[in-house]
């Protein structure tokens, strides 16, 4: 029922949000003391059972955000400011020990490359059982039974055979399912999937996305789905967050925000994909309307809007200061001077 409310996108449930991120700023510093900002004033909520898509190019801070939420920033990365409130607890105040009981049990992370995330010489079932072992006290037989039953939730058949397979005996899609089994073994409230289908081919891709949809429905797990590909996000997300150069440029219900985005950046991104509505009208073998250039270097930013150098709708005020988020449509926010900002 919770999931149903989230499915409708705009319904604001009365329960407190599962995850509340406020004004999160992350920097990377190197040994010479040089500081490069990575995330700037990120705020968003996730309700229980909701699927939030995070869209943006490489280098926009999507993976940094995922790691920051779990307190797993690589060395040099620091959360400079902000709050991460999960299930009523402020995660930034937790000790490392306390975070260990959150990671993998309450919030799980699924990486993009399943062949790297699995140990090549341990049977995959045992690798699922080890996640259980880290968070629960179970005897050997119970643990085995539970690992098989978790595998049964992500594989439609043969979970015993999968249990005793090694990673190299499985296909890419099967390995990704094993990672998902590890991630859901302890019944987390939130899954974070960072480009979970990037290394898979198209039909396996949609099988994995379908599996996420089923897990949300069955177990009520909320999901943060991170991707550079609007087509992937559109298949699952209830709401989306568009990141550009470390800032949120747009946030809204997925259907509206992907069908008719407000911010010039996601609009340009969608135009550049063949087969998306506007390009369907283009004749074949003509140039795609690509966004020229690349995201800016965050250690050398100007005063203005970060997308201004690549924006086709730029106006004089865009170089003066950064636009603030406004809400021109209900629950649909955008940071662009075209809408006030």
């Amino acid at each position, binding site marked *: 029922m919770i999931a149903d409310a989230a499915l409708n996108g705009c319904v604001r449930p009365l329960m407190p949000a599962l995850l509340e991120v406020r004004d999160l700023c992350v920097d990377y510093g190197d040994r010479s003391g040089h500081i490069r900002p990575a995330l700037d004033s990120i705020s968003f909520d996730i309700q229980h059972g909701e699927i939030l898509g995070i869209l943006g*190019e*490489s*280098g926009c801070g999507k993976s940094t955000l995922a790691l920051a939420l779990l307190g797993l920033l690589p060395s040099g990365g620091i959360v400079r400011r902000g709050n991460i409130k999960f299930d009523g607890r402020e995660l930034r105040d937790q000790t490392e020990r306390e975070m260990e009981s959150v990671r993998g049990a309450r919030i799980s992370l699924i990486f993009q490359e399943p062949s790297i995330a699995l140990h090549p010489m341990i049977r995959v079932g045992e690798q699922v059982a080890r996640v259980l072992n880290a968070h629960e006290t179970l005897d050997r037989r119970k643990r085995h039974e539970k690992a098989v039953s978790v595998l049964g939730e992500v594989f*439609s058949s043969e979970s015993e055979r999968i249990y005793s*397979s090694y990673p190299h*005996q499985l296909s*890419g899609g099967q390995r990704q399912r094993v990672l998902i089994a590890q991630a859901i073994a302890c019944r987390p409230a939130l899954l974070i999937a960072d480009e979970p289908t*990037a290394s898979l*081919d*198209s*039909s396996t*891709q*949609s*099988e994995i*996305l*379908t*599996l996420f*949809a*089923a897990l*949300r*429905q*069955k177990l009520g797990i909320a999901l943060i789905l991170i991707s*550079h*590909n*609007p*087509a992937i996000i*559109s*298949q*699952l997300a209830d709401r989306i967050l568009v990141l550009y150069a470390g800032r949120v440029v747009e946030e809204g219900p997925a259907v509206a925000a*992907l*069908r008719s985005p407000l911010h010039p950046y996601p609009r*340009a*991104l969608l135009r*550049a*994909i*063949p*087969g*998306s*509505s506007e*390009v369907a009208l*283009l004749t*074949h*073998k*003509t*140039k*795609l*309307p*690509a*966004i*020229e250039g*690349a995201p800016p270097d965050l250690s050398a930013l100007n005063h203005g809007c970060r997308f201004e150098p690549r924006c086709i709708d730029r106006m004089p005020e865009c170089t003066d200061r950064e636009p603030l988020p406004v809400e021109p449509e209900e629950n649909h926010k955008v940071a662009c001077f075209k809408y006030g900002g």
Partner: protein
Amino acid sequence: MNEVHPILEVEALVKCYASRRGAGHSGRANAVDGVSLSIAPATTLALVGESGSGKSTLAFCVACLEKPTSGRIWWNGLEVSLLTEKDLRPNRSRVQMIFQDPASAMNPRWTASQIVAEPLVIQNQLTRRDQFEHAQLLLERVGLPASAGARRLAEFSGGQRQRIAIARALALGSKLLILDEALSALDCSVQAQIANLLLDLQESSGISLLFITHDLVMAAHLADQVAVMDRGRIVEAGTADEVIRHPEHEQTRMLLAASSGLGRVTPESRDA
């Protein structure tokens, strides 16, 4: 002898790997099972299929990097499937290959211009100085700034590395580029930039492309002809327009559904 040869012609190509011992590997069918195709000058053929459909094996055979079990291959009228490795070598410059991960085929300690000049050094063409000047021109031609030549691989993004790979493939004046999932690892916005570069190069220098991908929509946008592969065979082929508007084979419809724009999945479609 006025007849124009196709840039590439393949007849009844079969590639069968000796089956390895171990689970799931016994009794495997041919990786490529009797494929015939041809590519006219200055055109693009897209080969579309899932992983495991045999498209990469076919590409390796066509580029003479794997020896086919049977079948014939011509490069611009020259039957390369008959040549010995020694006779093939001076002809290798006619066909170049670009991979999904260009960095895995580049020396990370070299500068971009060293990487691009390498084929010229190997084939012993031009003087040392001209080799680097030529590399500089090629880097500019693929849209990299003049300063790029002196920088090392780590300083480039994925899209820029793919541009360097394309520049290197052009160094010897190849008439056919084989792109094996060359766009798949890139961001959507960068995919569009590289796709535009390929269209540009084809228009300005008349190269042919064998574009291998699982993205049927991108394939149909870039190619003149599209061939869909499934389990080692071509199951559907035609002009890009025909294939995308009137897909006949089930595999084509599946690939089309999987790569066409924005849609939604539901929990019910699981294991369908």
